[in-house]
């Protein structure tokens, strides 16, 4: 481990990863081109993007030949960011549903005063 340059991989692995990146990018393009339905599309696209990013970071950036502490340095904070992304995704969906139920379904408060028969805010 004291001399990481002694651990240069065989040059063939770069061509394999290069080809694999083309295949993964092409697959994501086809998913969008043929219009896969939304929940499945999002999952597939994210999985393919993570696969490509993983290949680039692990092999092309030589992370698997680095000391383990560098791998932790690059892996743990992005995982926290990913959980933050999930939280913000949930928050965005909540905002969307709130707008859906309060601003679109109901008439504008100025247009029709709220009565028991015609509440400005349903439920």
């Amino acid at each position, binding site marked *: 481990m004291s001399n990481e340059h002694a651990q240069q991989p065989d040059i063939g692995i770069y061509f394999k990863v290069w080809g694999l990146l083309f295949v993964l990018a092409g697959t994501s393009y086809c998913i969008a081109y043929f219009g896969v339905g939304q929940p499945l599309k999002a999952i597939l696209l994210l999985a393919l993007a993570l696969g490509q990013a993983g290949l*680039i970071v692990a092999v092309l950036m030589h992370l698997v030949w680095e000391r383990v502490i560098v791998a932790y340095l690059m892996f743990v904070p992005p995982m926290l960011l990913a959980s933050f992304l999930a939280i913000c995704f949930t*928050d965005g969906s909540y905002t969307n549903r709130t707008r859906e139920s309060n601003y*679109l379904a109901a008439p504008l408060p100025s247009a029709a005063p709220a009565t028991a028969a015609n509440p400005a805010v349903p439920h």
Partner: protein
Amino acid sequence: MSHSPPSSSAAPASGFASFVADLASDQRAFKGLSWPKTMMWVFLLGDIFVFSCFLIAYMNLRTAVQAPWPHPSEVFALNIGGKEIPLLLVAVMTLVLTSSCGTMSLAVAYGYGKNREKALQMLWISAALGLMFMAMQAFEWTKLIGEGVRPWVNGIGASQFGAFFFMITGFHGTHVTIGVILILVTASKVARGELDNGTRSSLTGRKQSYELVEILSLYWHFVDVVWVFLFAVFYLW
């Protein structure tokens, strides 16, 4: 590079134990690692946070917004021979940037193999592919601006589309531009043979080696990693 091996002979060489040993080592962490390379990793971590801010804001807004989001496969379609081909330009941009990463990896491998000619050739090709990417992005921006897309309004859907598009792809494009400049600088160093005979850098005064090409490749590959996520969540989503 000739680092002295870790002073404690009992330090484990791999696995989780090495991670713990590195963090718990006396005097300093990251012992025995090449610091220029480690600093590039730390810089990239900072860049990950910046791009994550953009993507988190984008995902949050895109799920919250009520107005229909412009359909990317129509917005980014190219008209070839009277036929609309969705996302053609973006797909070509992806191929170009990925190929640039492939040639950059080869440049690193040839550099460490002391094959100066081949390493130089690969660096020139990487820079040329990076320039091609920039040219295509300039074309894409020109096309969208010509169609009336602005950061505040676009006439094709949710008005925040332009703000996110120009901000995120612009920031990525800036990274590509800086990367191309760095590749050209490194290539000129390789061409002068400075990395072979360990000439001191005019900027830092430190002896240079082919590790410089590897550090450059870390940055360049990171730019491709960012593009992979932009391609997935912005263009294909």
